[in-house]
């Protein structure tokens, strides 16, 4: 009975809810203010913003807060917007989902074809699309005005500083219907309802034409086509005019699915993007556009419509990269993601009716320490001497000495690190008697040497014990999430299910048994890779690459018993090679970019140990893929340096991927050593 009840009430199951919430009340209950820090607050300032992030990073969650009905739900309940917005000036936000409203169809059915217009007049299709966009957003705007007039909109009105008197003013409708940019299309409309009806009719005509129900666009529509952005400027001015005299009241327009246009319309998709770019380029003082895009899907088409000029970052818009906000840097202080994850989990539990402390999720997963994990391997009750096989490959003298120094109760992690340290020294040609002496100082326990090797050592211990690594603990789950809130929820959901399957109440057996957590985490890892298999933009190809690359990295690490290269869980390529622009570099660059966008790869900043006159970029498999392939999820400096040609062969060749320095394709830079290294060499 417990099993079914708890499984049905899994608070983390609905992963999508964080991404797209169109139910304002539910949104308010689920949204975590923790994500609104520093850069991400820019979304709510009067500036054009492009919000970048991996799939599932929470872009839509943030952008949706700009919408009038969403922020209104918040204000109605709490009398104010989320706390981080305390110092943000009020705004009025409307939105358009370009794919859902069919903006992408323009051009696939040509306006010119079948009419008297010149067939080659390809400018007519973007012009028509621009008109559709203007009128659709006008309909949304009118809906917003109607909302402000309703009882439901009182709180929003108060927050915006708009009086109902100004809104019911008949002249408001007259003003809107007489905007010059409409070319008298709405001249016979004298009420909000009639404006909306006429607007809907126009949108319906466009739709019927695109659906091929009409042979051509009626002349009254063609003759009153509005220019891109002009009506929006009027809408922005109108909102500003009904706001308080002493401050601006900006209009925000959230544009969704911009990045899908070229995929949905192969011939005209980028032209349609240029229509949207034109809105940004206008730098309208009243209207500000907010776009969300996957990490590398922005920037391929920056030209405006009808001209070669481009929209420029910082001048026309700002970029906010959620990855920068949410991903852990080397210095973890100020890392937002753990707090965001904890808060999101708490809110989901509340929604599902679970009561408890805010830290319940942390209590459920418990702490993680290397020794605690290591103790789970080689833990046979009767005889724990089997763990000494972790010293295999070493001479008896060394093995005996390590055993004497560490004692019979030594942790497997201590034994494996000692073994790795010895193997490293042996590879450097140090004699056994010298090593016996060096062991006295327990050099494998030195902080930095140990820290960089713990992850690989744990994997090797699990492997020597003929089992998979056991994953558990709050920190582990946070690391595995890779700064992606959807990945975090998937992990929590699968752990919850794994507990329920064993008839364990996840919130009572605190912390949850490591084995249960590990089952859930492994399942989440598998789901994460399979999730991409059916994704758009060649997900199947990425899946195929990842399922060859992952095992290869694993083999390389397990085979490196001396743990000489603990950072070789990722690879690094020279940026100049990537930007060559030839067929190979373009193919590699595209696959990597998409893999980052779809959260299959993780890109991290790279400061190489050697100076070689060019920048480098490095990539790892997304941390959540680590359990599936049994590779470390924590990042250590110095990835595997590799040539672009080799990566091309990995991705597009048919052969087995040989990862790591044991293979001949390592990219040994012909470089200048860093000064520090130089000094060391000189002193020798």
């Amino acid at each position, binding site marked *: 009975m417990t099993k079914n009840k708890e499984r049905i009430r899994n608070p983390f199951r609905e992963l999508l809810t964080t991404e797209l919430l169109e139910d304002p009340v539910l949104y308010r209950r689920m949204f975590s203010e923790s994500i609104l820090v520093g850069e991400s607050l820019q979304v709510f300032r009067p500036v054009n913003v492009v919000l970048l992030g991996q799939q599932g990073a929470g872009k839509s969650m943030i952008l949706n807060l700009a919408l009038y009905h969403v922020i209104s739900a918040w204000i109605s309940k709490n009398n104010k917007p989320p706390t981080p917005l305390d110092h943000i000036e009020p705004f009025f936000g409307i939105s358009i989902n370009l794919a859902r*409203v069919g903006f992408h169809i323009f051009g696939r059915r040509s306006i010119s074809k079948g009419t008297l217009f010149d067939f080659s007049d390809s400018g007519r299709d973007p012009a028509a699309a621009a008109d559709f966009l203007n009128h659709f957003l006008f309909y949304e705007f009118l809906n917003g005005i109607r909302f402000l007039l309703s009882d439901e909109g009182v709180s929003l009105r108060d927050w915006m500083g708009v009086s109902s008197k100004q809104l019911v003013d008949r002249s408001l409708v007259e003003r809107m219907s007489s905007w010059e940019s409409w070319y008298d299309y709405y001249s016979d409309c004298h009420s909000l309802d009639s404006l909306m009806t006429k607007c809907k009719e126009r949108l319906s005509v466009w739709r019927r034409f695109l659906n091929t129900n009409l042979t051509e666009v009626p002349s009254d529509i063609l003759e009153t086509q509005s220019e891109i952005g002009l009506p929006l400027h009027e809408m922005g001015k109108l909102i500003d005019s009904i706001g308080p005299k002493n401050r601006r009241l900006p209009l925000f327009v959230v544009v969704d699915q911009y990045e899908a246009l070229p995929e949905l319309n192969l011939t005209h998709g980028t032209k349609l993007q240029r229509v949207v770019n034109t809105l940004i380029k206008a730098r309208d003082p009243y209207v500000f556009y907010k776009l969300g895009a996957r990490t590398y899907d922005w920037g391929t088409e920056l030209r405006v419509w009808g001209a070669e000029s481009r929209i420029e970052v910082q001048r026309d818009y700002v970029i906010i990269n959620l990855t920068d906000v949410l991903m852990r840097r080397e210095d973890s202080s100020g890392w937002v993601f753990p707090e965001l994850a904890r808060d999101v989990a708490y809110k989901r539990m509340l929604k599902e009716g679970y009561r408890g402390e805010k830290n319940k999720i942390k209590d459920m997963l418990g702490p993680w320490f290397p020794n605690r994990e290591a103790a789970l391997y080689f833990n046979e009750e009767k005889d724990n001497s089997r763990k000494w096989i972790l010293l295999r490959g070493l001479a008896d003298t060394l093995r005996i000495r390590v055993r004497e120094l560490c004692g019979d109760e030594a942790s497997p992690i201590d034994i494996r690190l000692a073994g790795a340290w010895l193997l490293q020294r042996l590879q450097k040609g140090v004699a056994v008697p010298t090593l016996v002496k060096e062991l006295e100082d327990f050099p494998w326990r030195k902080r930095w040497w140990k820290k960089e090797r713990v992850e690989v050592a744990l994997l090797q211990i699990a492997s020597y014990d003929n089992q998979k690594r056991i994953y558990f603990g709050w920190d582990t789950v946070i690391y595995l999430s890779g700064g992606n809130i959807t990945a975090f929820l998937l992990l929590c959901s699968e752990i919850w299910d794994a507990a329920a399957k064993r008839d364990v109440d996840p919130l009572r057996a605190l912390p949850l048994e490591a084995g249960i957590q590990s089952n859930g985490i492994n399942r989440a890892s598998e789901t994460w890779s399979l999730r991409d298999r059916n*994704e758009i933009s060649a997900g199947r190809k990425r899946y195929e690459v990842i399922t060859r690359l992952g095992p290869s990295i694993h083999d390389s690490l397990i085979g490196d018993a001396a743990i000489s290269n603990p950072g070789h869980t990722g690879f690094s390529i020279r940026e100049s090679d990537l930007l060559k622009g030839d067929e190979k570099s373009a193919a590699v660059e595209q696959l990597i970019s998409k893999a980052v966008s779809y959260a299959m790869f993780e890109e991290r900043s790279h400061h190489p140990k050697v100076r070689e006159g060019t920048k480098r970029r490095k990539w790892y498999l997304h941390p959540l893929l680590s359990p599936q392939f049994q590779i470390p999820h924590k990042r250590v400096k110095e990835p595997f340096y590799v040539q672009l040609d080799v990566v091309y062969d990995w991705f597009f060749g048919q052969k087995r991927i040989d990862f790591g320095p044991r293979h001949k394709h390592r990219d040994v830079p012909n470089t200048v050593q860093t000064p520090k290294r130089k000094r060391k060499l000189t002193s020798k």
Partner: protein
Amino acid sequence: MRLPAGSLKQIQTQFLGDAPFSVLGCVSFEERCRAVPELVYSPNCLAIELLEIHDPTDAYPDYSVEAQRKITRNRQRLKRAKIPFTTQVMGLLATEDELMDILDSSKATRVTSTILLDITSLPKRYFCFLLKRMMLLESYRNIIVTYTVPGPHGYAHGPLAEDPQPSDNLPGYAAPAIYKPKALVISVGFESLSIKSLLEMYIDTKRETKFILPFPPGGGATRRVWDTLRRMDLQPEDINRDNIESVASWDVEEVFKTLTHWDGGSKSLVLAPFGPKPHSLAMALFALKNNVGMYYTQPKSYNPDYSRGRGPTWAYIVKWDGVPCYDRQVRVP
């Protein structure tokens, strides 16, 4: 709705008789694509036009060589059987303009007002569009849709289609721009493709997602269909008897009736045809009648071993004497 349907032979006997007709279909890598031309070719058959449709060049996996080999083999076999036909070579992701051109330049659709539209191997984005144009245009008086099921060995065990595009309306079937859908209805088949992107787009209707399952397709196939459902990551509460209807995979009329029942006259469903072709046909007819949208995540790569052999051929009279089947009333005696 009144949709006379049956085996092709029955329909030929009862409706076509000696009247002239032509065939519009597809020559593909599937053996069953030849079934209708081979069955109906006779002096009354004035023209056969077969579309040859190629996956885009960036499709992955790239099956183009194997697919072309099988297409060529099917063409040769039709020629060997002395069945004259013309072809138009098309790209899978043809635009609305290009799809409209098919009918304009097709001989088959000009020489007679009775068309057999063979949807057996036509991709959904093609046959739904062609169906719509022919249903709307008065010059097409009689339209019979035909569909040949695979042979006893059914479909390939691996993926049938891969590399999906983002969720998009099928050409000609975009929902109105101002539209609050009541429910999303998914016809379930062997592939979920990127259906999650569709669920994301209609997240606000996700609570009202309904499913049409093909029945009874045999033990193994049932498992595949339920696997597809599982891959959609649905909430447990989404799976209940009110939300799922099992309909025989050939029964177009029953699917239409189910949609009508679920819609309740609101004309506010969103349809996602991921299931068998006859179910997609029913959805297309419902969409035409009620002006609702049909959405799909078009795969770019089709497995050239998609189906094996050929089974019976069904026929559906979707338009007769200029009257669409959905405008014909059932008279109760």
